[in-house]
């Protein structure tokens, strides 16, 4: 397992701490433009995800890539997470993974 470049769990608020670095986030797809998608982060903010979304694309998708601004991610890996997703639990995970339990993640 390649642990050389770990991706931090982020929501919109945490994204700005990782600009330029590798992140992962679950996004609810709002608009799909082909070259990028507009999605809602797990803390209810809008983010732009650039790259090649898979076809078909489910409502929720996890993207892993480089954060190129505090509102967008250049996605390398896309994973369909289906249409049912517990957003609040994931958001709590993001907060815990960057807060009290940061030492367990990065």
């Amino acid at each position: 397992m390649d642990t050389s470049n770990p991706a931090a769990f982020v929501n919109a608020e945490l994204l700005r701490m990782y600009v330029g670095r590798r992140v992962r986030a679950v996004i609810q797809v709002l608009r799909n433009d082909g070259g990028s998608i507009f999605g809602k982060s797990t803390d209810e903010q809008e983010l732009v995800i650039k790259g090649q979304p898979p076809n078909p694309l489910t409502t929720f998708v996890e993207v892993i890539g480089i954060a190129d601004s505090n509102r967008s991610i250049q996605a390398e890996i896309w994973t369909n997470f289906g249409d049912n997703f517990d957003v609040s639990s994931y958001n709590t995970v993001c907060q815990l993974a960057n807060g009290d339990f940061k030492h367990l993640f990065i």
Partner: protein
Amino acid sequence: MAKTVTPDAISVILANPCPDSSSDLPEIIVQVVDLKPTGNKYMFMASDGKMKVRALLQSTLASEVTSGNIQNLGLIRVLDYTLNDIPTKNEKFLIVSKCDVVSSALEAEYKAEVKVEDGVNSLKQNQEMDADVKTGSPAIVLKPKQEVVTKSAAQIVHDQHGNAAPAARMAMTRRVHPLVSLNPYQGNWTIKVRVTSKGNMRTYRNARGEGCVFNVELTDEDGTQIQATMFNDAAKKFFDKFQMGKVYYISKGTLKVANKQFKTVQNDYEMTLNENSEVEEASNEATFIPETKFSFTPIDELGPFVNGRELVDVIGVVQSVSPTMSIRRKSNNETIPKRDIVIADETKKTVVVSLWNDLATSVGQELLDMADKSPVVAIKSLKVGEFQGVSLSALSKSIILVDPDTPEAKKLRSWYDSEGKDTSLAAIGNDSSPSNRNGARSMYTDRVTLSHITSNLSLGEDKPVYFSIKAYVSTIKPDQAMSYRACKTCSKKVTEAVGSGYWCEGCQKNEDGCSLRYIMALKVSDASGEAFVSVFNEQAEKMIGCTADELNEIKLHDGEATYQKKLKEATWVPHLFRVSVAQNEYNNEKRQRITVRAVAPIDYAAESKYLIEEMTKIKVSN
């Protein structure tokens, strides 16, 4: 009236924690030390020069402090008070509800000098040599002048016992045995005890006929308790004689080893009184109904007690009171009055409490009449049942106090008045119903870890206890009997009939075919440990993924490898289980038996929420 601190005032208070406001208290003057405001009330240390106790002035007295009447280092005469225990520390807490100001601030904290008694007191002698002030503590000048008080032994005894009747005297004229010394082999005893609990008269019927019985809980001066039971004639003879709170001399009872199932007090023995037993009221003893000691469980924490043996105490605000209902008892067709009340507490949950017999008619009616005032009730000794999730039921020993004057009641009252009566309250039963047909949602009631079950072998001793667990199937032994031959109609075990076919004992007929139904033992594991559980047909089918008949086909026709693979596919799969834990005796050994009653797949969203909650709890408790 001497304007001095009453010597040993604190001892007097400690000896009499709950004085009747009508009785005459001995003069209790204490010095107020370390007076400080907390919120809108004042806390201080009440000092008698020798001992101090943490104290609080009731809010009605706060104005006395702000106006300057009660001052720090001043003296107050305590007129009415309550002494409580602080549960977490081994300390007492005095609440002063009424007092007079005796003096404004003294120059310093008063320290009682050593009492002049008959014995030689070297400390005093030393001090007398050092200083020639009258008081024993050097360099403290006290205004007003304190006087040395000599006390006789009788005085000291009186102060220490406050206003309690002189108990010692009677014990010397009658040879009273302490309860702790009673045993079945020595019959010649007399005990002096107070009735601390009196049960109702119950009627029963057994092979020998009908009868009536009641029991009382007796406590002696040392605090030892024992249960005494009376049957038939003795019951009728003594039922009216025994009154709650009164003291009696009892002799000629018989003792035997207590039956654990019915044990209510901590004693290896229990007593039976028959018509020859003697019960005499101790006429000079004051009736003292001991203050009911409660240990409240918040409503949202009642879950783990469901169907258990442990009784709970609750306190809550009455939301509603039902009219009296008549329930017919199945065993003897007797009709009993019943009333249900709904109470709520600060956990924003409500629960139904069923009251029976006298409680339904007396207290129940009282509560119905005052229901619109939302009274606070404190109830002791309730059984926790699983009706509609979680329900409480009163027993004959349950005690109900309406609007009690306790700190918990006051806290509840102020919570209710400020926010409780407007918030929406949820019934505790609602989202934690153990009706196991509905899988996921119910799997969070009484969630425990496997080690919680395996480490407590006395779980389910008389009645099975239910829990929810999340565990992985870790081992299914391939060479066990996975199933049994079952009757297609009634699912009972069938035996091979003499000719052909099978004989079902339940249906009392021969069947041509039979079906196989799972009965298997498997091992499950979770983060805390592992355990063996028994699984029956419906649940096993879900877990293995095929019926017992199909599995048997695979075993017979598809070969051992495929068969084992099928079992392997079921391992390391997580499930939510609803299990029952019971204690069985096997070859004289007590064994714990865990049986799966329901199985449900993991609902990851719900499970995540549960885990987040648990993490928060751990964080808070740290």
